[in-house]
């Protein structure tokens, strides 16, 4: 198969890559860019381990052709931390036991990040709705719910402080 030269913007960096046209975004991230944080847990778009943000929207990179997303801003779990500082969602999953084996964690983090961008004060039911495409086999979700709600609180406090400072 003839490879195609594509441009992909991932975590703020633009990459030029020669890839086969049938290559999935997940495989380009993992194999061509060495960003192995996004995982493959199933083969039928039903587990959420591969979730990345495409223009801020959480999507399944295992069913996305890489060539289709050349004009998009793609964010993977490796792009969540800024200047070595973890995102509040990452901090919360650490302290609240949101990650056990960690394999589903990147997907949960991306979905959670998108949820809290949109709604920093979700109810438990809203959290459960938003995370319903991401499967975790370890936690029974309880500590994930706690992690998400804790992250939300932290984000709200952070925003309040930022507003206070800017005043």
């Amino acid at each position, binding site marked *: 198969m003839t490879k195609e030269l594509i441009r992909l913007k991932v975590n703020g960096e633009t990459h030029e890559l020669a890839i086969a046209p*049938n290559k999935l975004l997940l495989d380009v991230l993992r194999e061509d860019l060495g960003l192995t944080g996004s995982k493959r847990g199933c083969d*039928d778009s039903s587990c959420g381990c591969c979730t990345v943000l495409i223009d801020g*929207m959480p999507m399944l990179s295992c*069913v996305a*052709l890489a060539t289709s997303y050349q004009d998009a801003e793609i964010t993977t779990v490796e792009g969540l931390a800024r200047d070595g500082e973890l995102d509040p969602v990452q901090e919360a999953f650490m302290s609240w036991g949101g990650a056990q084996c960690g394999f589903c964690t990147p997907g949960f983090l991306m979905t959670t990040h998108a949820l809290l961008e949109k709604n920093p004060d979700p109810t438990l039911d809203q959290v459960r709705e938003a995370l319903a495409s991401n499967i975790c086999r370890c936690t029974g979700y309880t500590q994930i719910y706690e992690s998400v709600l804790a992250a939300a609180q932290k984000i709200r406090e952070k925003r309040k402080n930022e507003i206070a400072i800017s005043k």
Partner: protein
Amino acid sequence: MTMPGFRVIRPSSVDEAVRVLADNGPEAMVIAGGTDVVPNLQMRLFAPRVLVDIKGIGELRGITCNDRVGLRMGALTTLTEIAEWKFVERCFPVLGSAVRSVAGPLQRNMGTIGGNLCLETRCLWYNQSEFWRQSLGGCLKKQGDVCHVAPGGQRCWAVWSGDSAPALLTVEAELEIAGPGGRRRIPLAEFYRNDGMNRIALGRGELVVAVHVPVSSAFRRGVYRKLRVRDSIDYPLAGVAVAMKVDGQGICRAARVALAAVNPAPQLVHAAAERLEGKRYSAELVEEIAHEAIRTAKPLTTSASTPVYRRDMVRLFTRRALEELWQTRRGNGEKRAG
């Protein structure tokens, strides 16, 4: 699982897409959100030479709605966009209820209304890997000559497993289709062929461009009830969409009932419209319509749940939906299936 080899063409206009599709005929295949197509490609259910990625066609995006032409949804409108469209609950609650039930939130972020209306039919004996299917010598639909669901028959019973189609049938939606001969509009009901192997009436070079819903079916009360094991991710094991207009006196002024996942096509329960119109609520009438629904439903062993149970649930969900819509002041699509 690996992907088969193919070329990808990314047309930037509908005309260009139509040209590519016409040139390549059955060797071409359209991809939009990818949630249905990509797993099927990995299972080698399709082996297109050319994949036509339509995501770059701006004309296919977006929702417009006004009181002259009604609702128009571009084929690439995502299910999330429809679910979050601010008028969906007010104008077309059955549609909101149905799209919110599709798979899970991430699949809805990618999946498009066009894709959901063109979904491949599903069957436990078909939606399997190449190895799995070959261990059985294939099936009628793919690389074989036996239907494992109805052995001896020459008909494929793979089921229609989209949720939005039955909902759109209840509001008399139409499809706008572009093709080499120009654009045409057909009632959605005529789009489906009730054949598991040849599910939709789309000719060479044709592409679904948009879905239209007439003004006349706006403001119907509506709900979609979906039988599924889990409240997320699952395809329907059965689905019942009901939309109806009830006047101030409680008299039904219009009603449609449609089913998913119990036939190779989404199907209107034809008797429902005429029998309900002009009537007041009665438990007997509702039971009669529910009975009509199970006469329409022909579930076979294509999915995890038994045909008997799915028929039972079609009857129950029809009854529950009608009662809910008729007996409350407004249909509320929020109630969960079952």
